């Protein structure tokens, strides 16, 4: 029996410390090619723990997908560290088979991420073969992977082509493909945004189930803050490459403290409370990111002088609840730059 078919192993923690990725773009000019640095992800630290779902919420261009790709080691970080079970991973080096067998990525569009000329069987068996399973056992493992994502009976799906399946079914195949090498960390990059409303909950409940029953550590990337509230144990809001607010449980949605989170929440269609609709200034430029100071300052309704001059640190606004905003500088409890380890411990104690 190979390592692939072993049952649940020890809990994992994938930790990122100060992950940063800058992209250099060239601004075309007549003679001088000026360089422009896009700070896609800046100093992001997070922990993915077994049996917990961490949600990253942000609008398009906030750097959330780059973050997932760095965690999957598809994109190399400009700086920062990655730890798997406390062991530092050399981020500059090529990713190894050992790493990908622990950490797997599910992409947004199942129609684009499944090869249209291959049957489902191929998508599931190939990673197994690459990861060292024996030819005689791959079919059984592929079947088991399909059952895990509730595609029953597996025989009905193994010999189908992607175009013969619906979006929801195909996204389950993508999840099965990621799961068949028995990773302990699943990175899901907007797994439901391309799916129909009626099947979205099915995929969300599947992720939740995998997390609860098989102790997977799940990173759930989304722009839909309501779905993050629905399944996440920790929620992180990103704006322009930075974490602007984070909390455990539903604190962040129930009591948002950062102006951007507040704007995000007020923008969600909420028929239950149609009076809560905030409206922003008419036109904003999505990438009007200040060079100095807080990146949200140009769009912020509460902007102060200090915001334009200095980037705020993370202020503690509740147990395990941090806000990257100067508005909270005067909170009695505010502790500047609380180390993530300390914060997690505090969050755990209050939640349990």
């Amino acid at each position, binding site marked *: 029996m190979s390592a692939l078919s072993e049952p649940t192993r020890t809990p994992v923690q994938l930790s990122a410390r100060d992950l940063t990725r800058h992209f250099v773009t060239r601004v075309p000019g007549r003679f001088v090619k000026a360089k422009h640095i896009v700070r896609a992800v800046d100093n992001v630290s997070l922990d993915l723990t077994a049996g917990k779902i961490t949600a990253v919420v942000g609008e398009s261009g906030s750097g959330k997908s780059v973050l997932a790709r760095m965690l999957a080691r598809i994109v190399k970080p400009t700086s920062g560290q990655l730890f798997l079970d406390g062991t530092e991973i050399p981020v500059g080096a090529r990713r190894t088979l050992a790493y990908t067998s622990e950490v797997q990525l599910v992409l947004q569009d199942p129609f684009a991420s499944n090869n249209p000329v291959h049957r489902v069987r191929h998508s599931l068996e190939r990673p197994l073969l690459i990861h060292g399973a024996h030819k005689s056992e791959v079919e059984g493992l592929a079947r088991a992977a399909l059952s895990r994502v509730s595609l029953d009976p597996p025989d009905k799906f193994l010999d189908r082509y992607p175009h013969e399946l619906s979006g929801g079914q195909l996204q389950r195949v993508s999840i099965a493909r990621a799961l068949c090498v028995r990773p302990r960390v699943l990175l899901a990059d907007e797994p439901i945004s391309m799916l129909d409303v009626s099947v979205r*909950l099915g995929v*969300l409940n599947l992720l939740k189930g995998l997390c609860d029953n098989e102790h997977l550590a799940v990173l759930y990337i989304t722009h839909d803050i309501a779905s993050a509230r629905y399944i996440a144990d920790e929620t992180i809001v990103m704006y322009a490459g930075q974490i602007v607010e984070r909390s455990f449980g539903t604190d962040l949605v129930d009591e948002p403290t950062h102006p951007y989170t507040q704007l995000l929440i007020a923008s969600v269609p909420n028929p239950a409370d149609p009076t809560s609709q905030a*409206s922003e200034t008419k036109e904003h430029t999505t990438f009007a990111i200040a060079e100095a100071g807080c990146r949200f300052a140009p769009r912020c309704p509460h902007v102060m002088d200090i915001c334009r001059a200095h980037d705020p640190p993370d202020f503690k606004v509740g147990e395990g609840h941090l806000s990257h905003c100067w508005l909270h500088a005067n909170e009695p409890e505010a502790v500047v730059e609380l180390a993530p380890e300390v914060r997690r411990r505090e969050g755990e104690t209050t939640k349990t």
Partner: protein
Amino acid sequence: MSIERLDEFRVSESPLTPETPEPTVVPAPANREIVLDVSNFSVDYGTGDATVRAVHDVSFSLRRATVLGVAGESGSGKSTLVYGMTRLLRAPGIISGGAVNLNVTSDDKSEEKVVNLVTANEKELRAIRWSHVSIVIQSALNALDPVRRVGKDFDEVLRTHRPDMKKEERRERAKTLLTMVGLDEDRLERFPHELSGGQRQRIMIALALALDPELVIMDEPTTALDVVTQREIINELLDLRARFNFAMIFITHDLSLLVELADEIVVMYAGSIVERALANELYEAPRHPYTLGLLNSFPPMSGPRRELTGIPGSPPDLSDLPVGCRFAPRCPYVMDRCRSENPPLATIKGSRRQVACWLQTGDPGVAVPVELSREVRVASDVRGDNS
């Protein structure tokens, strides 16, 4: 292009001057409030044995300056419906029946006539499209020509439909339109790739409003945008609607958005309307199990976290529809009758709302579940009931 083809082309360019009475033009009905009346409209894809009925016997009407929301998942026929209605459908799509009567007011507001878009010829359609009915198509982000400055698109529309406008007037109009949707005038000089998704969407909306149409059709205009931009665009649209009094058909799969935006909502499933009601009625007291399932598919933003189930199963294959009610295989309240007979869209007694479900026939032998028989809290009536 051959000489004959050129002549044909010229004819279609000429202004609408019917020498003989057009059979499709009938005097305006008594109710001038109705902008659009669709009856028994059906669309097929393909012919012969391979025919798939994508829109099945759809009827509704739209009052002046109201918003009709069309909700449904992909493959429910909502886009096909509007492309069919506006005769924009491409082969293999065929309109297989029904009438789409549009109430057209002439430019000087002096006369009104009703045009059946299904039977109208190219010349009549040309006079109606954009001036009276305009459409903001899905993936509008790709609908702008990447090699032309945005201003050129405005210029072209105005030059084609308002040939007597001078160049400076067209320019002024384009600037006014941009200001209306909250963009700077200098955006006219930009190429589409220089604009963000939200800005391009605003351009599309401004273009749709260029000729002051009575009806604007929006096919998933905000689906590709993030929530903050979506909120801005929706607020913008409601504001414009109030100023210019156009009616709107808004298509989306996001029912929670429609509840906020629309006056009336039709829910489509597998090509048919399964429920039609005022927005607040639909939200507070859904009558069709599919509507209830859709409403329960959105995780709430407040209250305790509890497990939601959504709708089990997946949407049906239109080429292999189940016998009886199309929703029956996914319906938690399915009865024997549902598996053999397809329920008609019928008006619920004592209300103006319609539903296609055997649970709601008023038959005392059928026990209606509590969640499908809720009362509407406030019996508010949205504008328009002045008959």
